[in-house]
Every structure is written in structure tokens, then in C-alpha cells.
């Protein structure tokens, strides 16, 4: 999995490319935790390049969301495809995440 980052204002947009599954999920989790720590939680996950998410990936997203919730923040996902959104909906995890149609909306939510 390739993880690209880009600042939009003071918000770090993290764009993982490739399936969020298996061992990549741990790598992703570690990376996100570092980004969250460095940027005081101003992080958006651009899921436009995530083709699918397996159970491990869902668990990772859920863990990150729970960690952020302890500091009054939410995990902001944007541009997730239909497959990823359906998986999140079906597993009942959608209340844990804030989903935005595009990066701009997600970044704007920090205002």
C-alpha cells in the first residue's frame, strides 16, 4: 500500500492507494497514528484510491476512530467508493466515521 500525503491548508490529507487489508492495515494504522499526533488531529483520509477494505482494515479504521473519539475528534473519510461505503454501512461502523463526498468538504469541516 502506498500512502500519499498532502496539506490542504493546515489539514493533512492522507491518500492510501491500494486495498486496506491484511498486514497493510497495521502499517496504515501506525502511519495514521503518527500523522494524527503530529498534526494535532487535523487529518483527513482520502479513500478515493481504496478499492476495498477487509475485516482487518475495518478494525483498523474503527480503532483509529475510537482513539480520535477520546480526544473529541472523529475520523474523517472522504471520497470512499460505493464498495467501501457499503461495507462500512453493513457492518454498522458508519456512526464512528464522518464521511464526506470530497476532500474539500472534509477539509472545510475543520473550520
Amino acid at each position, binding site marked *: 500500500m502506498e500512502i500519499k500525503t498532502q496539506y490542504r491548508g*493546515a489539514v493533512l490529507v492522507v491518500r492510501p492507494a491500494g486495498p486496506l487489508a491484511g498486514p497493510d492495515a497495521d502499517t496504515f494504522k501506525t502511519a495514521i497514528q503518527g500523522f494524527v499526533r503530529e498534526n494535532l*488531529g*487535523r487529518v483527513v483520509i482520502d479513500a478515493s484510491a481504496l478499492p476495498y477494505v477487509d475485516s482487518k482494515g475495518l478494525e483498523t479504521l474503527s480503532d483509529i476512530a475510537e482513539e480520535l473519539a477520546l480526544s473529541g475528534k472523529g475520523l474523517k473519510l472522504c471520497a470512499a467508493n460505493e464498495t467501501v461505503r457499503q461495507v462500512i454501512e453493513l457492518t454498522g461502523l458508519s456512526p464512528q466515521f464522518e464521511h464526506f463526498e*470530497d476532500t*474539500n*468538504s472534509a477539509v472545510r469541516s475543520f*473550520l
Partner: protein
Amino acid sequence: MQTDRPVTAGPEAHSDALGTRSRLFAMRRELLRGDSLFALIIFAVVALFLVNLVASIWRNMVFQKDVTQKASVQQAKAVGTMLARAAESLMETNGLSTLRRTVAETALEYNLRVCRILLPNGAILADADPAAITLIDLPASWEGEAPAYAEEFARQSARFAYPLTIPGRGSATLRIAAGVDDRLDASLVPQTSQMAIACLALASMLLVHRHSRFRLKAIGAIHEILMAVRDEGADISTLELDPKLGAEAVAWNKLLGDRQATQVRSAIQQVKEVAHEKSESAGAFGAAFDAVPSGLAFVNRALQIEHVNGAAAVFLQAARAQLLHVPVATAIKDERVVAAVREAAENPAAKRAVIEVEQGCTVTAGVLRFAVVPIRDGQSHFALVTIEDITQQRVATAAMNSFLAKAAHELRTPLTNIRLFVEEALEHCEKNPVAASRCLNVVNDETQRLDRTVAEILSASQIEAGSFELKRDDVHLDEMLAKLKADHEAQAKEKRIAYEFDLPPKLPILQADRDKIALALHNLVGNALKYTLDGGRIVVSAQVEKSRLSVSVSDTGIGISPEEIEKVFEKFYRSKNPLATNVKGSGLGLPIAREVARLHGGDVVAESELGKGSTFTLILPLVEESA
């Protein structure tokens, strides 16, 4: 509860009455519960009576035995005396055979163990046992003195020696030994037995009475307690009975114990429930504390952090445990904030202080706003520190300021041109119509440029505000591309750029926002014309694939470096390429084109090679999607 308290009686009188009643009740219960003095006296009297009865029986038996023994001795003694007189007489008259028969019969009659007559030389003249006789005939006379009268008592026998004096013959001795009868009188046995039976019966009755008294005492005590509970209520600790009262008391105590245990369990359960509720309340408070997106920290007068939430821990970049109960100066490095906290913690009347702290050298490194207010809680007071991350607001404000400055610049340039050329046209309108016409053409161009700039700024503002909405309609792409070609042909011709369209014979009709799609395409072609040098080439092509339409604008322009390929989609971004610095532009064209495409469910992607040219492709889905 009903009371008999007189109406005029005060609380103290009522209290005294209750106290006396309670004491009497306790005394009564005490008498019923344990071994009372009365019961002890009764028991002692009966025991004394029994002992006395037994002693009387024993004394009677001893007396009877003594009497019997004495009677036996007296009888033996009398028999001996009588036999001695008879022997003297018979020996004097030489009636030896009669003497011997008399001795034998007397011995047999009175059950004498020994009965014999001895001469002083030891010869046995007569004996109860004829075989023991050693002297057959009675001598005419003999020598020697017989011993004096003697008597000897052993355990169960009495021995007597009577001196016999036979005139003309000599002296002799009568010895008898009689068994002393110590057997009780037969008439005493039934009497003694009856007394013994009576004693046993009395003892049994005493035991039965004692046992039943215990049982009845337990039941009576329980009854009293139940009545007391009914009338007054009672402390459960005073209701226990002496276990010695028997199984009923033990069972009663067990019931009380069970009830106490139930009460204790109930109390524990209630305590647990209260504790649980408090815990839940504390948990809910803690959860709410953590759910606040702003960082919160309570600092006490000792300038130590008492409470801190998760957001504050994130903002202060430390684990929550590391922040608790540490000096505030350790957690917050900015001296202004620490000073404000000190002021608020020490002075409850301190004013609210707001301090903005930049974390690093750049704004994007983080800007935190610390608001410090004093909080009074009874006698104590705290300082509440609220921490907000205003970095994005700062960046947005900076971007807005930059946007306004650039927008003002973009507007000022064409407006300046318009003003200058209008003045020139006015000056030459009568004398030099050709120059005036040229000026008006420039004014026309600048007006169009101004119009586009204003439209772009408006679009960018709408995008920024989130109010960039689509008005979908049927879009005939072939017509739109034809107009696009016509609109830019003159500009391409002016720069001697080959402006070509490579389109399929038939293009689909889109469900899209016509004006915004047109705006996006104009921006792409306009950018290509701007950054393609004279003599270059621009090709607009369209491909219809399975579910999407791609419109590509390829040019042979200056190209974009890989580092800048994504940045060109940021608002107001201007390329660092020296060849691009002189190109006029708002820096909004590509961001708007991409935003338009994405709102339609598509995208704008760029491929470029520095110095060789670029290709920007507008991708739109053919299936209608919700924006």
C-alpha cells in the same frame, strides 16, 4: 404506630415512659430467657430434698444393720451364758453325752460356727462337730485354771470364751463363735425400693420439667419478642435468644441471622447500585469531558493539573497520564499562558485571558488558542484552561486574505486597461476613429477577461463556501465543443497555434450543468493556449468509453514538473517555471475545472512532461450520479 401518650405530656415525659417500659420489657425478657434465680432456688430445694431423702435411707440402713449386728451378738452372748450354766451342771452330774448333744444342738440351732468345751490342757470335751472331740470320757478331776471370760469381735463374727467351774473336778472353757448377721431386715427392702423409685421419679420429673421449661421459655421468649415487634418495633440486635434455650432459640436466631444477612445483602446491593450510578454518572461525565473537541484542563491553586481531557492531551502532545498532577509549566511551555493560569488560579476575580500560541515556525505547524478563566467551587477555585486548535482558521483567513488580494489584483489589471483605453478612445473618437476603434476592441477584450475573472472568482467563492451547486440539463456535447472551438480559434490563430479537434462522429448527450461544464472546458483550453508557445499545437479529443466520457486537451506547451503536477489544482497556485511567470492568470482555472468534474462524479487528471507539453483530461461519468 399508635401511642397512649397523654395529650398534655411533653416529649421528655413520653421519652421517660418509653424508657421505663423498655427496661421492664428487657428485664422480663431476661428473666424468660436465661436461668432465673427463682428456678435456681427451686432446683436447689428439690436437690436438697433428694439428698436428704437419700441420706435418710442410708442412715436407716446403717442403723438397721447395726441393730441386727448387736442383736446377733446379744443372742450369741445369751446362748453362750445359758450353755455355760447348762454345761457346768451337766459336767457336775457327769452327763457328758447330754452335754455333747446339747452343744451340738445349740450350735445347730443358733448357727454357731464354733461351739466347744475345752479342758485347761486343751483337750476338747465337747464340740459341735463330734469328730473334733479329743477326750472321750469325762475325767474325775483335772488340773489347771481356765482363762477368764473373754469376748472378741471381728468383721462378721463374734467370739466368746466362758470360764466353767465344775465343783470337784476342775475348770473348763466354753468357746463359741457366732456369725454376726449384718443383712438388712427384709421388711426394709420394699420400703427402700419405694423411696428410691420415688427419688428417681422426682429426679426424672425435675429433668423433664427443666427440659420442658427450656422449651417453653424459648417459645415464650419468641412470643414476647413478636408481641414487642408488633407493638413497638425493635432493634433486631435485641431480639436474639440465648442458644441454651434449645433448638427453637437456635432456629429463631438463625431466622434473625438470615434476615440480618438479607438486610446486609440488600444494603450492600443498594450501596453497589448507588456506587454504580455514581460510577455511571462519573463515566458519563468523563465520556462527555472527552467528547468535547476543545482541550480542557483544570488547574488548582498549586498550579497542578487536576483534570485534563483527551483533546487537551492531543493538543499538548502528551499522554493524559503524563499531564495529570504535574505542574502546569511542565505541560504548557508558553510563559504567557502559564502566567495567565497562575493569575486565574490565585485570583478568582481575574479576567478571562485569551492567548494564541504558534507551535512552530510556520502557521501550518499549529496555532493553539488558550483561554484561561478562573472558576470558583465553594471555598476553592481553579483555573480552567480551554485549548482550541485554530490552525485551520488561521490558514483559511490567510488564504482568504491572499484570495482577496489576488482577486483585487486580477480585477484591477483589466479595469486599469479599460480605463486607459476608454480615455484614449474618448480622446481620439473624433480625430482618429481607427485608433478609437482599436481602443474599444481592447476595452471589449478586457471586459470579457474581466467577466471571466469575476465568474472564476465567484465560482471559487462558491466552491469555498460549499454553495457550488449543479443545475443539470441535457448537454449536447458536440454543440458545446463546436462553440469551444469557435471561441478560442481567434486566440489560437493570433499565436499561430494549430488548434485541432479530434472528435468521434457522434457524441452522447450528457446530464450535466451546461454552464459549468463549458466553464471547465474553457479553462482547460484557455490554459493550453496560455502556456503553449507560438507555433505550437493544441488538440482537443474526446473518447467515449463504456461508462464515461473523456475530453482531453493536449498541448505542446511548457509542461509541468512532476512536483507541481498536483499543485496546479490548488487555488491561486502559479507555476515556478520561469516561462510561466509572465502568463496572466488567476490561478483558479484548473481548481474550478476539477471541482466541476468532481461534482459531476468525474475528475480532471493531468499528464505532463516538462518542456514537451501537457494533457489535461476531463472525465465525466455517462451514468447519472448524484452530485
